């Protein structure tokens, strides 16, 4: 049971758009997880990111930090390091396995044991044919990944202590590893250590841990250690060039830019320090480095750092991703453009796909956690009040069902029908289906009974990534793990596959079914939107590509239109019958406000107001907006503040809720708003290293 339950009904008056009573749900106890490591694939422009619970996320940088996929972590499978090889993604964990991730099915494709205990770090050679893993046993394990395999190849001589970080020289066959008190340079061909660089200790009895090491192409080795020092070594001679006390505590991570002139480091003290190469003396190849700028945006330990194009991206225990402009950290280039030094951006861990489903007819909501599902009855009231009033509840919200998955298998998606009579969820492989009977729902103790419906043995439905019930509750439309659209028919005793459409795309991630059960729309990461006819079982049409992904889509109540919100914040309406964009879209597609387009967070849900078909409800984690299609768009240069003063405008924006997980319109002008306040969200974080701050 949750310890604190917030369920408040509030009145919301959104600038003459009508009055709403709001189920202000605050009992969704989703907790963010700290970031463990990151790896950027420049060809795909995707950032792979792992969190401490072993979950993996894929972010599209091209679409302005759109969270494409979340691969939930499996218990006991931690991810310590991530490496891209072309389009293949490898992970290494403390269970001793090196895994290749299937990016379509979102599970493990291949796995290979290190035979040398837990794996701490992973590196790839520049050709993308070998992987090197640093292990607890103190040896480097080489793996063959050529021709799409993942096989154990060989291991180097083992040293007496663990290897915590590893870097493969880009040209020569050299591997640099860091461990306890020393850095070693290995020859790949012989498997023998060529150099051993001893790192000094500050305290005689306290060993120095090398947390991170990078080998530059000119054999300059950069290391970060537990003394808080960032050291630059001449790898050929094995001598220390410079050691800079850049941090107050351990340096966890390092990154170098493509020109190898800038190195950034960060660690427990959460400051990000930039080092620049300066050609120190004339007629000398002595490379001298100076620490230049410090950024302090994180509140907790920084675990991972990456330089992506001209940006530094950092992530750590405080679960946020923070992006700086590297050119503005650097020397004058940024100042000439008069860019302010504080140009940075925070990307919150809030999932960009809704984890909440609402059964609107009976005021029941479903909350999807990683390993369990909760079904709640919302509180209700008959009172009304003025804007901002908190209405007294006649009955409090009650948790009806808590359903745990078997064997620690994570949940991929879930759904519930409008009258809460059926519920379904899917893990990686299988789809599970339940019928629910609710009695005396308005009582203090409603009766709940749940029955599992077994899949038909001859044609069991596949595991799903998205699912949606039709409104007549006879069918369940899913996007399977192999990215096909599948129609399952629901019988009282079993559920069976009715039809599977052929695979049109490898990466479907959004699904919606029209209210008259005739159409289904799906969207993929390649910016396509397909519409299927469920009755005639055929692909109807595709929406013209916009060059940006769709982050939310929905059918209109009359089932004639599909409305789509793109990652560039534009909203398009597509007429399914006419197979063209609607007149409203044609008129307004170029007249969105700049302030609106510049928003960082992506629209996570868009829907029509069932009571007024000209109103669109859309929200992201920061705000929700009612878009009135009958009104004119404001001027392009209007800001949000100026917008509030206008009498009639298409955009009605409410920024009352911070970290809005879900917002849905119910009949009779009720809203369900699932909010997770910032304090609650970060309350589970551990204590950070104390930093002195001037003036406090």
């Amino acid at each position, binding site marked *: 049971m949750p310890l604190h339950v917030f369920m408040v009904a509030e009145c919301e008056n959104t600038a003459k758009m009508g009055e709403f009573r709001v189920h202000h749900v605050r009992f969704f106890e989703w907790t963010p997880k700290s970031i463990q490591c990151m790896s950027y694939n420049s060809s795909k422009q995707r950032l792979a990111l792992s969190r401490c619970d072993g979950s993996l996320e894929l972010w599209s940088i091209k679409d302005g930090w759109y969270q494409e996929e979340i691969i939930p972590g499996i218990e006991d499978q931690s991810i310590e390091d991530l490496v891209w090889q072309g389009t293949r993604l490898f992970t290494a964990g403390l269970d001793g396995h090196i895994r290749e991730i299937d990016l379509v099915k979102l599970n493990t494709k291949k796995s290979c044991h290190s035979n040398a205990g837990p794996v701490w770090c992973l590196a790839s050679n520049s050709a993308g044919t070998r992987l090197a893993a640093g292990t607890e046993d103190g040896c480097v394990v080489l793996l063959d990944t050529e021709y799409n395999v993942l096989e154990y190849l060989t291991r180097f001589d083992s040293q007496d202590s663990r290897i915590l970080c590893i870097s493969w020289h880009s040209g020569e066959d050299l591997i640099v590893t860091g461990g306890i008190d020393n850095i070693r340079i290995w020859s790949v061909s012989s498997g023998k250590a060529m150099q051993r660089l001893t790192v000094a200790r500050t305290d005689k009895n306290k060993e120095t841990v090398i947390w991170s090491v990078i080998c530059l192409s000119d054999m300059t080795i950069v290391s970060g250690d537990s003394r808080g020092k960032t050291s630059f070594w001449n790898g050929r001679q094995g001598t220390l060039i410079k050691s*800079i*006390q*850049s941090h107050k505590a351990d340096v966890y991570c390092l990154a170098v830019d493509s020109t190898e002139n800038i190195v950034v480091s960060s660690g427990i003290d959460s400051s990000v320090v930039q080092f*620049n*190469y*300066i*050609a*120190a*003396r004339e007629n000398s190849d002595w490379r001298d480095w*100076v*620490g*230049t*700028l*410090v950024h302090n945006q994180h509140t907790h330990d920084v675990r991972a750092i990456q330089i992506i194009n001209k940006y530094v991206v950092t992530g750590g225990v405080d679960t946020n991703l923070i992006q700086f402009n590297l050119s503005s950290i*650097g*020397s*004058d*280039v940024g*100042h*000439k453009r*008069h860019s*302010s*030094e504080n140009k940075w951006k925070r990307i919150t861990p809030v999932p960009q796909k809704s984890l909440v489903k609402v059964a609107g007819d009976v005021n029941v909501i479903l909350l999807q956690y990683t390993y369990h599902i909760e079904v709640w009855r919302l509180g209700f009231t008959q009172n009304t009040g003025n804007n901002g009033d908190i209405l007294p509840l006649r009955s409090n919200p009650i948790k009806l069902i808590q359903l745990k998955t078997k064997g620690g298998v994570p949940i991929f998606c879930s759904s519930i029908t409008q009258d809460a009579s059926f519920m379904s969820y899917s893990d990686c492989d299988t789809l599970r289906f339940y019928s629910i009977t609710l009695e005396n729902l308005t009582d203090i103790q409603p009766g709940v009974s749940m029955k599992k419906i077994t899949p038909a043995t001859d044609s069991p439905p596949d595991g799903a990534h998205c699912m949606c019930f039709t409104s007549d509750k006879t069918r369940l439309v899913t996007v399977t793990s192999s990215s096909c659209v599948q129609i399952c028919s629901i019988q009282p005793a079993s559920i069976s596959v009715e039809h599977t459409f052929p695979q049109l795309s490898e990466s479907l991630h959004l699904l919606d079914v029209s209210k008259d059960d005739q159409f289904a729309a799906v969207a993929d990461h390649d910016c396509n939107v397909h519409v299927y006819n469920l009755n005639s079982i055929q692909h109807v049409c595709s929406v013209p590509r916009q060059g940006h992904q769709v982050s939310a889509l929905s059918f209109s109540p009359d089932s004639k239109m599909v409305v789509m919100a793109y990652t560039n914040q534009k909203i398009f309406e597509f007429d399914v019958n006419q197979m063209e964009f609607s007149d409203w879209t044609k008129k307004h597609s170029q007249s969105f406000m700049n302030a609106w387009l510049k928003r960082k967070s992506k629209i996570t849900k868009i829907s029509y107001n069932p009571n007024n078909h000209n109103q669109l409800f859309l929200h992201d984690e920061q705000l929700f907006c009612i878009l009135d299609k009958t009104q004119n768009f404001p001027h392009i240069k209007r800001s949000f503040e100026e917008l509030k003063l206008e009498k009639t405008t298409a955009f009605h924006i409410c920024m009352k809720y911070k970290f809005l997980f879900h917002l849905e319109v119910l009949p009779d002008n009720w809203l369900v708003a699932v909010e997770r306040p910032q304090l609650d969200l970060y309350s589970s974080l551990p204590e950070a290293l104390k930093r002195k701050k*001037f*003036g406090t």
Partner: protein
Amino acid sequence: MMTIKKLKGPPRSTCLFQRCSNDVGKACIGPKGSYCVMVNKKEMIVKNLPKNKPVKHRIDRKQEFTCVAGNPNGQCIATGCNDGKIFLWYNFLSEDRAVKTVLHWHSLALRELCYTQDGSYLLSGGHECVLVKWHPESSYKDYMPRLGAPLNHIVCSPNNLLYATCLNDNVIQLVTSNFDIQNVYQGLTRSPHVSNTSNPFPAGVTYDPRSEALVLNGKPGHIQFYSVQEDKQLYNLDIVCQNYISPENLNTPLEVTEVIQASFDSNGEWLATIEYWNDGVMTPEMRLKFWQFNTEKQSFVLNTSVEMPHEDTVHSLVFRPVSSTSTPGMQHMAVTSSSDGKFKIWALVDDTDIYRSNRKWTCESVGFYRNLPAGKAAFSEDGSLLAVLFGSCITVWNPENNLFKVALHNTMLQDTVKHVVFGNHGSSHCLVSTTEKTLTVWSLISCSVLWSASTQIVCLTKDPLTDIVAAFTSSRDLFVFRPIDPTPLFSHAEVSDSTILSAAFVPHSKKSLYEKTTLSWQSQSELYFLNKDQELLAVSMETDRKLAKKKEDVVSFEQNLPQSALSLLMSHHSNKLRPHSSLNKVARQPDGKFMKEMFSSAPHVQPSVTTLCQPFIQSLMILSEERRKQGQNDSDDDDLSEEEDDIRPYQTVSLDSGLESDMEVDTVDTQSVEVINNSKLQTESDSDENEAAVLIKKKTKNKLRNETTVTAICEKLDKVKMFEEKVTDEDLQEIFTQDYSWFSSSSKT
């Protein structure tokens, strides 16, 4: 051996930078002249010297460069910013490859940066009063805190062993490389006040008879003892005992507790101070402290501290003087007067108990008058009378029993009386007071105006040893006079460049120096005064004849002497400044107006009818007589004298009683002519014989903050010593012969 090559022709000079700041810290030349660098607001311009091609670097908005220093190894330039950041620039000769590092400890703008000679350490200083030593290679830093005042300049000795820091309060400290203070050179402490509105010396300047030093505000919360004879600061006495804290923001300076009044008793045993703190938000704090000089410690020790002695600003704090004429065994006494309408008399009482013998100060009595705010207060020379200003009234009290004696009130002038001073010695029956527009001398015997002059006095002080009073006008003119005599002994126009704040006479023993000169009034005490530029000035003889222009300034006043020398003199000055103003009048109570005054003033402030009666009748009598006499003397003045509002040299309403006064008036009138003639002769002979031009001697008040370096200060100190050379007899001889020749030649023509 160093050899100096002789250059042929003048040295060539090239202009490196235009638009350069006059602050030396804002430009720098690299080692061996490899580059030169200049900072100006937001940009730093570096020139590679042989090529002379400028490279510009900029910093962010909101930031501004304040100083620059080049590393002696030539690799790096350090710049200081107004937000306290130090940037170290590498690769500064290329615009796009430049790399900068931040060192940030200072919270306020940096004043100066300095590299040590080998370039390994960087010294920085600013408003925090902390000298910081950076080792940029290892990010190590060391601090030397609580220096007392913001740092202005830092230099490093060539052997790397000593650092010299120049502080904002006119102090140079020599610091060893491990931050031990080796030597301190201190001049007159400069007040940190920079705003134009506030007075940098609220306590003014007073004379400490024991140490024979001038006492004025020093460091924040301190008073400094400054020996004018030796021209050096003796010490700073901490009055408020609070550490100086630099403000969070330079635009909103922190309000510090200031010593607003300081006073010594006649023999220098007791010091009384009032400190005041008011930030406009919290309840103001005020403390009256009495300090006793401890001969063992050779310092003042706190005896009594009184919290909030008054509810409003205190205007004066005076000890009762003890002189040869005063009653022996008189009680130690001090008076404070405040805008809250009260003056308090504090007396020294016995506080001995079984544990110790002690004395303490307590408030003995409180006086007030008509609910008016009290202004300044003054004791008479013998301590038997106390004058306290209340609005436009001067009230005279007996300090022993705090009994009200008399109120002097000039009904014609309703202005608030600003200053009040009792005369000394020969003028001890006189009381000098000033208002916004006039200077008035009262006779305490008749309680009436002796004479009055229309002038704007901003500062009034008296010599404790003679009966001389010095007054400074708002147009910065100096007048020295005796209260009984309206003829000024000495006057000088524009003695200072800025407003005079305070002045004091300092007794000295160099009597012969001033005899038979225009400055003979300084034979007992020298006059020192402070102006708003924080300069301490004195009037002294000048040996250089080139300044004879100023002499003419002095002499020319005597050309056409009128009835009252002072009045015309003053009007002469004021006319020079404001020709339109018609201030040329010596106030004289016309007879009709005397009656008016008599009836208009409140009966309770008037003297008894018997005292009023005689002067009233007498005034009528004198009027007719004087008319006749004046008519005989000067028939041209008939029309003037017939008018009732005519201008007369002396106050006719006055003086003791009956016929005697009649006589006296007559004699005074005739005497005045003589005096005038005498003074004419006197001044002529003065100008002939002495040729003493007047030099305004500026003591060491520094302006080192902006334009001078540490070396320049040393030079300045030397110069000051040069001023003190004495006028030798040969000089006088020379002056005399020259002027005599001029005189004879002019007489021939």
